[in-house]
């Protein structure tokens, strides 16, 4: 084994040691194992410490990953068992020693009665005791060392066996592929009616699910639905027409507040009908989109981003301000916002609301697709790729950019109105900058300009954190990590947009005299 590959393995070990220490410092060494236990099926009440076995499994996974990486870095193809295992051993040893050192330092500081929570709020004495397996720091550290080495060697071994069985796996894959192609499954794939059936099944599920899964899920899925609405709207502005608007929450706020102020008893006593108010909210947002758009039409890229970022904050601060307290009730927010009614009956149970949100989402998907596939979508895409050339080619860039802003804002207004109506309350803090960033994140993670991507992104970024409540404290961390990872491994997003095939091709001709065809060809 050469010194360079030795160095590489040691480096890998160092990286993983840093990962483990980082996770320990932010208290994730408790959250992680409790997630592991959740997967087993044990539900933990908040604040309880998970079992040590879960910690072993959690750290074991990281260790296996470490060994796997180290084995891959030996650069041999196919992997050589001896050197791979040795690389795993080195990586595990380095990682284990450093983690042991960390455990020793933190353990002895904690043993002296110094509360580390003063410096790192999640590094509680319990988490330190848990990290050293409830033993003394020395024994805990030794356990870490052993665990790290064992799991890294296991990882290296797994890497080698995966490498060796690669051929077998591809054979199996081919077999399965052939089987699905030739059997009834394959013929089903080609069936044109399959799409209709699938859509039907999805619709049926959408009708049945809100009735069966209870109010908790309705709440979560309702939030996801509203974020899908926002995502589709922002996707029209950022993904389709390529204008980086960071103050998208402004339109959300304008929708929510214009809806709230004309339906709530306080402060204006208007109490308009729900559906009428919804329409007003949408139109108000769309108009605000155009009004914002007019002065910033000439801005591009970074400048546009900064200006719109400021705009989002201005709206929130205006709503909150004393100056407009008479109109917006200031920081107190607007209460008792009307729910939907249908033929004089109240329609605002959580199930009804879920249906309403589903309808709005389906409508917005339908509309966004219509525009995406039309000449409007083409013009938007052209603008997003090269605005100068698009304009010189004859695309009325002002018109289309304003149109994108107005439509995107209208969707945000619809989302805002539904959001305010569902909560029966809206306040300035519902419309913080974080909403803009969340929506932008889900558009980027899902895939710019792709509607299925937006839906997928909304489920991953809004749905998963709601389900994984344990991760509450780490939501921003996970967001950031996810964005970085996405930008590295899949910059085009989870479900990138595809372009349609449009060229009209003549039916393939059957050439009777191929020799003549060749001699006459080439006059293109």
């Amino acid at each position, binding site marked *: 084994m050469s010194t360079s590959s030795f160095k590489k393995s040691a480096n890998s070990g160092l990286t993983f040691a840093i990962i483990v220490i980082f996770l320990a410092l932010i208290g994730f060494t408790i959250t992680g194992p409790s997630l592991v236990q959740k997967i087993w099926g044990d539900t933990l009440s908040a604040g309880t410490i998970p079992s040590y076995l879960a910690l072993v499994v959690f750290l074991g996974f990281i260790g296996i990953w470490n060994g796997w990486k180290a084995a891959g870095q030996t650069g041999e193809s196919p992997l050589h068992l001896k050197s791979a295992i040795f690389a795993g051993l080195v990586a595990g040893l380095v990682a284990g020693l450093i983690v042991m050192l960390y455990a020793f330092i933190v353990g002895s500081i904690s043993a002296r009665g110094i509360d580390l929570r003063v410096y790192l709020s999640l590094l509680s004495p319990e988490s330190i005791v848990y990290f050293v397996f409830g033993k003394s720091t020395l024994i805990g550290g030794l356990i870490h060392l052993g665990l790290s080495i064992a799991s890294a060697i296991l990882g290296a071994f797994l890497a080698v066996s995966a490498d060796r069985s690669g051929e077998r796996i591809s054979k199996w894959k081919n077999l399965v592929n052939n089987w699905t192609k030739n059997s009834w499954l394959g013929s089903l794939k080609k069936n044109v009616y399959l799409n209709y059936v699938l859509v039907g099944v999805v619709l049926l599920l959408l009708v049945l699910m809100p009735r069966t899964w209870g109010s908790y899920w309705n709440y979560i899925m309702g939030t996801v639905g509203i974020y899908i609405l926002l995502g589709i709207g922002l996707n029209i502005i950022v993904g389709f027409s390529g204008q980086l608007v960071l103050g998208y929450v402004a339109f959300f706020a304008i929708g929510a507040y214009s809806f709230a102020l004309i339906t709530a008893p306080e402060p204006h006593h208007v109490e308009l009908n729900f559906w009428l108010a919804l329409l007003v909210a949408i139109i108000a947002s769309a108009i605000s989109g155009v009004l914002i758009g007019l002065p910033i039409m000439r801005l591009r890229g970074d400048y546009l981003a900064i200006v719109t970022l400021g705009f989002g904050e201005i709206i929130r601060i205006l709503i909150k301000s004393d100056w407009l307290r008479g109109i917006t009730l200031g920081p107190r927010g607007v209460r008792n916002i009307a729910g939907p009614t249908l033929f004089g009956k109240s329609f605002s149970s959580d199930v009804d609301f879920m249906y309403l949100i589903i309808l709005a989402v389906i409508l917005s998907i339908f509309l966004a697709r219509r525009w995406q596939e039309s000449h409007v979508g083409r013009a938007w895409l052209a603008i997003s790729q090269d605005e100068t050339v698009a*304009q010189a080619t004859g695309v009325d860039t002002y018109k289309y950019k304003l149109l994108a802003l107005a439509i995107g804002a209208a969707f945000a207004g619809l989302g805002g109105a539904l959001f305010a109506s569902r909560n029966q309350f809206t306040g300035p803090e519902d419309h913080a900058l974080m909403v803009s960033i969340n929506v932008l994140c889900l558009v980027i993670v899902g895939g710019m300009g792709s509607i299925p991507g937006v839906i997928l992104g909304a489920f991953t970024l809004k749905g998963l954190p709601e389900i994984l409540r344990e991760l509450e404290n780490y939501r921003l961390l996970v967001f950031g990590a996810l964005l970085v990872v996405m930008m590295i491994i899949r910059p085009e997003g989870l479900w990138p947009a595809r372009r349609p095939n449009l060229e009209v091709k003549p039916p393939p001709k059957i050439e009777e005299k191929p020799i003549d065809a060749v001699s006459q060809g080439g006059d293109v």
Partner: protein
Amino acid sequence: MTVLLETRRVTKIFGGLIAVNKVDIVVPEGKIASIIGPNGAGKTTLFNCISGLYKPEFGEVIFNGKPIHGMITDKIAALGISRTYQNIRLFKSMTAVENIMVGFEPRIKQGWFSAMLKTPAYRNEEKHVINEASKLLKYVGLQGFGDQLATNLPYGAQRRLEIARALGNSPKLLLLDEPTAGMNPQETDEMKDFIRLVRGELGITIILIEHDMRVVMDISDQISVLDYGQKIAEGTPKEIQSNPRVIEAYLGPGAAALSEKYRREKVQ
């Protein structure tokens, strides 16, 4: 002979640099006019002034009897001026056919609302545009490449596609900025024939910026020579070839006398 495009003392200044200095060019309808000159002579800047990317500081651009300087680019394009670019500027992540369809934009009548409702008029227009774009694709010899992303096409095909996009709004005037740059001799010949074809079959007037003198001398009806932003010569290819100022602009002062001497020696 009607005049299609006329520039009158067009001047464009960048800071202290006069990029285009009082240039007069008259292009009659149905002709191929070339603009040549050394690098940095202001040829592309003049193109940008005509197509509206730049607003000239002084002077007028008259197209079809109407002044167009100071108009927004998309309005100029809608009047019937199309162009290509020195460094290819296609919409990279759109397919070839879609690129051409964007070119049709000034002629599309249906708005966003009928696109939302998919009215019969909208459908008909969309079908028409797809058909026409596919025809144009075939016309420039890219049949079968229509559903490829523009960025995946080979270099020569991208140049042709750019011309097809420019033809999309059925222009009266086509501005070609170095259409044969980076092409081998065979591709250059093909492009030359193609430019002739566009003028002959479609009756489109063409202004050409080109460095390849064989192309320029072969297909131009008239040539204007720019140097340091000023027009130093104008005439038929033959006149330009023997113009001492042109030779000096390209080869440096004194070159004209040398070439005259060389020619005499050759004759003797």
